[in-house]
């Protein structure tokens, strides 16, 4: 009793730099999970969980590693982060692994990270690109669409998803008329939209972020009348896009990681109550990342990364009772009582192979200015 009064968790994300507008919401999501656990008073016999934020700049490997090293010196017991794949790799190789620290990234999707010798220390709650590419192909094929134009945000997530999708789609007999990158945060996307339009295609697949270049592309495409329907992968699905684009988005569809339960809806509610955007990309994943760490600690009965690291997969996967956002207290209790849980969370977490998420997907469609779930895959 009382042997663990305080558990510090690092939330190391790019609060400045290219995805600064996402990082704040992500951190809020992770902190939500932590305060939920603290309030429950159930973790390791009543420990409080204290979040410690540090910046990666998203693009600054050296800054990210220094900050991670600093937090480790401050005595954190786990890391939610990093965000961009580049810095995540650097943090992992140069700090986390040498120090034996557990790191759960909510957003780094680079397949290259799969192959790192991570000693059971690195996990991701972001779904794998390969799986999403297949799901997206199914969605399109079921709707009878066989020719698409494709644009992706020029980073490992966008590129990875685009590659995976193109392979799957073409294998299924579809045609990708053009696959072209867009840079986030640029001033103007007329050239990209011009090219996408000229190449033709029944619909435009936008593998980007809903408040970055992806939004810019959709706006410009609608404005010029180049496309009026879009396929929206996970990074593009969220309330803000419907708000920002308006009625013109009606009829667009896509998919986002999420299971039969209403994890994502719960996240939205939590976000509304907590004053942040629960639908912002990777916010549910961040909540889940934090939750997994704490649940694993509970399952291992220890806050030592060496002890709880190996438990992460078991709390994330079946068998056990399904756990959704807002139910962490329940989960902690079950674990304390020696039961088993299957954490689902806001992003339908399912860890496969080398610690990656392979969840189910929720197919969505925009109807009357709102995102509606039309099925699961």
């Amino acid at each position, binding site marked *: 009793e009382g042997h663990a009064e305080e558990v510090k968790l690092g939330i190391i994300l790019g*609060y400045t730099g290219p995805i600064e507008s996402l990082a704040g919401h992500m951190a809020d999501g992770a902190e939500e999970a932590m305060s939920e656990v603290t309030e429950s008073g159930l973790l390791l016999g009543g420990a409080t969980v204290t979040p410690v934020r540090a910046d990666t700049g998203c693009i600054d490997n050296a800054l990210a590693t220094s900050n991670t*090293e600093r937090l480790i010196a401050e005595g954190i017991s786990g890391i939610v982060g990093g965000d961009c794949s580049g810095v995540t790799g650097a943090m992992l190789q140069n700090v986390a692994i040498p120090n034996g620290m557990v790191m759960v990234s909510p957003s780094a999707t680079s397949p290259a990270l799969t192959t790192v010798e991570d000693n059971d220390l690195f996990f991701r709650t972001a779904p794998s690109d390969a799986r999403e590419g297949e799901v997206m192909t199914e969605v399109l094929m079921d709707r009878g669409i066989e020719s698409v134009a494709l644009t992706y945000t020029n980073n490992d997530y966008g590129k990875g998803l685009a590659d995976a999708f193109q392979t799957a789609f073409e294998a299924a007999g579809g045609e990708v008329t053009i696959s072209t990158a867009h840079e986030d945060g640029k001033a103007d996307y007329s050239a990209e939209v011009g090219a996408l339009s000229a190449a033709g295609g029944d619909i435009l697949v936008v593998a980007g972020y809903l408040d970055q270049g992806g939004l810019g592309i959709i706006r410009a495409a609608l404005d010029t009348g180049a496309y009026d329907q879009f396929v929206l992968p996970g990074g593009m699905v969220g309330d803000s896009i419907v708000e920002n684009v308006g009625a013109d988005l009606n009829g667009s569809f896509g998919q986002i990681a999420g299971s039969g339960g209403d994890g994502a809806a719960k996240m939205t509610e939590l976000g509304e109550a907590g004053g942040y955007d629960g639908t912002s990309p990777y916010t549910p994943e961040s909540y889940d990342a934090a939750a997994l760490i704490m649940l694993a600690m509970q399952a291992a009965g220890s806050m030592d990364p060496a002890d709880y690291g190996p438990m992460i997969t078991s709390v994330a996967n079946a068998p056990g009772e399904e756990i959704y956002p807002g139910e962490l207290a329940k989960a902690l209790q079950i674990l304390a009582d020696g039961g088993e849980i299957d954490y689902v969370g806001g992003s339908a977490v399912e860890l496969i192979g080398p610690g990656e998420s392979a969840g189910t997907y929720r197919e969505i469609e925009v109807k009357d200015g709102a995102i509606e779930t039309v099925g699961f895959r």
Partner: protein
Amino acid sequence: MRGVGLYLLVGALIVGTGLMQGWNTALLILNMGLVSAIMALGVNLQWGIAGLFNIGVMGFVALGGLAAVIVSMPPTTEAWAAGGWQIVGGLAMGAATVVAAVFVWKRAPAQWRIWGTVAVVIAGFVLYRQVMPGGMAAVEAVNPAGTGYLGGLGLPVLIAWPAGGLLAAGAAWIIGKTALGLRADYLAIATLGIAEIIIAVLKNEDWLSRGVKNVIGIPRPVPYEVELQANPDFVATAEGFGLTPILASSLWVKLSYTMLFAAVLIVLLVLAQAALKSPWGRMMRAIRDNEVAAEAMGKDVKGRHLQIFILGSAICGLAGAMMTTLDGQLTPGTYQPLRFTFLIWVMVIVGGSGNNFGAVLGGILIWWLWVQVEPIGGWLLSVVSAGLPDGSLVQERLLAGAPHMRYLTMGLVLIFVLRFAPRGLIPER
């Protein structure tokens, strides 16, 4: 004197960091500080000594990083078989086109010159487009999630450091030949643009550098921590010092880097000082002061500019290779001008442009600030906002803004240093 004092101050900052935040953090900051100092030295050579306003530092640093991949990663044999030689052929064709075009431009009779050159370029471009894309696609198709690029030469990564310098020097030669005639501000924006083009190539030419998919796991010149932790001898020695294996191993790895980097920095510094104090340095200063007069006094201004542009860029390339080695990965998406060009400039100017010791000091000091401002700023903000009612909008804004303190502080430091020591902390002479 002031210089010695400032160096002591920087030393104290690093030691203080070690005492407060752990020696791992301190060494990490010092290592990157040393790399930054080398970059600052390169920029200082170009700006402080020759007056060349190069804000394309990022591009040369990135080329250094590319060198680390090309030299040290294992070659992807399937990719070579699939389309590697076709790419080599395509590149050769491109190079041949350029050479032929230049030849026609220089040698052809006047009436044929323009059209001949245009024809050669178009023909070359068409041929190139016939050969290159096929090879690229074939290479990129080889296990795109894992490799999808040609790989490197599989040589020891230390070789990549001079190679990075050479690669950057080569690029600098081409750039210098075309752009060095431009006036200060114009040269600046041209180099800025060229750096962006280099990054665009790294991001989009997957066959070369895996593009935005990143290359990770670049070999190290020093042992891996986990290896050390598994080595009984090492563990025993560490325990002899009263250190846990984890701490000892990570400290030892960082110290090894520190020694390597410090050695490079010292060699460069000695060479740079010797050059600066020689008649060569005097000539460069004369050129900086008045190009027309220097030219009339028999100095080959263009040639000298090219020389120092190449030297400075090579140093940046060297530092870039070192940095990529330290990171263990090449991530083209991380190269942003704010971080890799402007921050280096801040180092040079704050340290004292024209003075090599100033540039080195600026490099380490500003890097320390860059990392430490956030915790300091967060602490300051929490003190300030503690007095505010909980959950108030202002408090929320302030706390959310903590990471931006870094920009604020960098800005203020820059403004104040330039206000009270306009020629930098250790001014030229």
